[in-house]
């Protein structure tokens, strides 16, 4: 077994570390503290990162991207997340959907969308699935009932599709220029057989963004409502086949495209960055803060907490890199999903241990520690909830 990184992987990691140290960490707490959800985003950091390749690194070289491998992507996400988990996610969300474009879109669509995406430092991608009445039902749809699941309706009129309905909690919605959107094209059959995926540019007539959700963690990362009122999308923007969206997204556990495959790795690699931050911060604090004339590190309780933090973090690192390595070799397994579920447990325990070591100092909590704990709780509904765990379990048997 060879755990060494290639020179190219190593240089991406170093580039990411420097960008994280020089540009992300200095703005992290200040963006987190902005009370208005709509205002936490800044294009400045996106543009700077984009110029270094952090927006487009999953795009094939043929279309002007960097075509990095999964191991590199995992390393970079971790480094960026170590400085700010939400900003790391704001970059990697684009990789997720550029993987999907590569895997699922036609040559014509790649030409029309990947090229402008690569050319524009402020071109950001998103995908709308969740709706106010349908979250878990989209992720694990009942197979015998057409009613549950997303209701956004798409009807064909000649060369156009007319979309009506709304999406909620959609990542990058308030800032994105292009979205994948899942819509019902056959309401009479169960969800899996009746949805179609569309490419919807943000300037589509009849399409607009509603509220920006005000989250307790991942403040920088924008989630918004998408509202479709007779939105008109050309038939040429249908991804794959009509009524065939599920086959493309692998929602039935198939892992047939890069987008879904990447998403699980993404959350675990990002969590690893938070854990690295928490571990190093805990060690630094333990070695400098004093109590009773000694450093905190002198105490058995503190040593035991730091031990557990590092132990879980290093176990997660092994898991994350193994999954990335398997992806690069196209080894299909449920490991990505398991790593994601595991990362949810690890990131919360590790950050909570760090908070224990810091303590509330009579009534004051260190804002950075508080942020790590709030960011980590995001995993509860993305990566560690029972639906996501059961979904992964089904993959074990596939």
């Amino acid at each position, binding site marked *: 077994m060879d755990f060494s990184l290639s020179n190219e992987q190593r240089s991406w990691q170093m580039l990411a570390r420097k960008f994280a140290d020089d540009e992300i960490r200095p703005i992290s707490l200040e963006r987190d503290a902005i*009370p208005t959800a709509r205002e936490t985003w800044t294009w400045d950091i996106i543009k700077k990162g984009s110029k270094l390749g952090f927006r487009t690194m999953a795009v094939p070289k043929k279309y002007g991207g960097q075509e990095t491998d999964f191991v590199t992507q995992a390393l970079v996400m971790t480094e960026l997340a170590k400085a700010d988990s939400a900003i790391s996610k704001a970059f990697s969300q684009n990789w997720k959907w550029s993987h999907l474009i590569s895997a699922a879109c036609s040559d014509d669509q790649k030409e029309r969308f990947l090229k402008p995406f690569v050319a524009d430092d402020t071109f950001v991608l998103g995908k709308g699935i969740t709706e106010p009445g*349908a979250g878990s039902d989209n992720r694990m749809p009942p197979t015998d009932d057409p009613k549950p699941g997303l209701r956004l309706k798409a009807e064909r009129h000649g060369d156009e599709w007319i979309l009506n309905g709304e999406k909620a*909690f959609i990542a990058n919605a308030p800032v994105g220029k292009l979205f994948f959107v899942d819509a019902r094209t056959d309401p009479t059959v169960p969800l899996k057989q009746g949805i179609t995926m569309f490419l919807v540019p943000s300037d589509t007539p009849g399409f607009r963004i509603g509220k920006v959700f005000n989250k*307790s963690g991942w403040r920088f990362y924008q989630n918004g409502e998408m509202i479709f009122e007779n939105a008109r999308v050309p038939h040429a923007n249908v991804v794959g086949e009509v009524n065939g969206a599920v086959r493309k997204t692998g929602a039935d556990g198939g892992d047939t495209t890069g987008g879904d495959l990447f998403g699980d790795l993404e959350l675990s690699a990002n969590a690893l960055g938070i854990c690295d931050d928490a571990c190093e911060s805990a060690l630094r604090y333990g070695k400098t803060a004093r*109590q*009773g004339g000694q450093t905190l590190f002198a105490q058995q309780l503190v040593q035991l907490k730091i031990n557990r933090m590092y132990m879980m973090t290093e176990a997660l690192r092994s898991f994350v890199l193994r999954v990335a390595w398997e992806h690069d070799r196209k080894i299909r397994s449920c490991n990505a999903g398991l790593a994601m579920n595991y990362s949810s447990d690890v990131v919360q325990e590790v950050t*909570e241990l760090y908070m224990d070591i810091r303590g*509330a100092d009579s009534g004051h909590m260190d804002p950075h520690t508080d942020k790590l704990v709030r960011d980590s709780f995001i995993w509860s509904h993305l990566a560690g909830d029972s639906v996501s765990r059961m979904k992964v379990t089904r993959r074990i048997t596939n």
Partner: protein
Amino acid sequence: MYNLHLSTEQLEVRDTIRDFVTREIKPVVLKAQRLEICDRRLPMQLMDQASQMGLRTLALSEDRGGAGADHLTCCIVAEELATGDADVAAALSTTSWLGHLLFDHVMNDAQRERFLLKFVNDGDFHLAFANHETQTDTRLGVNYHRPAPPDVALETVAAKAASGEWIINGVKDYVANAPIAALFTVTVKIPGQPVPKVLLVPADAPGLIVRVHEKPWSHGCCGEVTFKDCRAPADNLLGDDAAALLACFLGNAMPLFQALNVGIGRAAYEAALDFAHLRVQGGRPLIEHQAIGTKLAEIAIRLEVARASVWRAAWASDHPEAIADGSLPDLPLQAVAQIFTSEMMVKATKDAAEIFGAMGVMRDMPLQKYIHDARVCQHNGNGNSDAKLRLAEVIAGFRRSAHLPMALAGE
């Protein structure tokens, strides 16, 4: 006999407050803008209403004009209030219990004469215990099972002027209720005296300045109190045992804040239970799915066991004879309740929020607030790790002399 069959009065009080929470508190505090942790002001209108219901003077003895509630009843009230708002519960509990200690135990007749009527009659007369100083480290830490280090002297000093008045100088930090208090009890060092003393200082005393802490990790409201040549009358000095008695204020005898902690968990549980009945996914209400049903069951278990530990500690304080005759263990039951409850309520609020999916992290929804509130309880004072060290010392049979400031660490 160990008996947790609530009396008619206790049941009435509980139901009255439950009703008050539903009708009055929730409609105010669940508004989106107040769920923002950064903009959480104490709702003074509700505080007034609660005061009129007698909750501000709940623990004060009946013959002095209060309700004379015992430990258990006070805990029941704190839990109920906290299902509505942890801050309201904390501010009222602080005033009520301090009022009981001061007027029923610590003050002399002359002092009571001067302050009791105002306390009973004035609806916004709140109390605060100004003890904590920034430089005073009350953590046990490396001193676990070791002789106590030399005491760090309080830096707040009271000197006697020629007129007999006390001249106070110093700064107290993170003082609960400071922004709303009409009367402060202040621990001070008096030059030449080895043990700290306690002075009564009205909020309007010249030279007393309160600065409100905007985003504290505590419940209620708190602030920094600066004394700058602040004057207090000569007979505002409390008796010699006052410091030790007040140190027990949030110390080892009264699980008020643990009851409040249970209330926070219950608020999250009730919200999640309602939602699990209403929300349909997978063709049936959430609660009809094993994964969600058992998650709620686990929350219910944590709540029941936590409340049992709180009530047991409260009941023990109401019945010291039950410890004396060995019916209950001679352990700091309040610390047991604190550690268990605070850990369980963080888990409970997180699980409840998870049931809400993405809505569980939204700031215009209460779930993220409940998690924050539960975390505050977990890190209250010196936090659970320190509380465990203190419990370990008791179990080990290590007797620590109860002098200040180590004795104040329970706060």
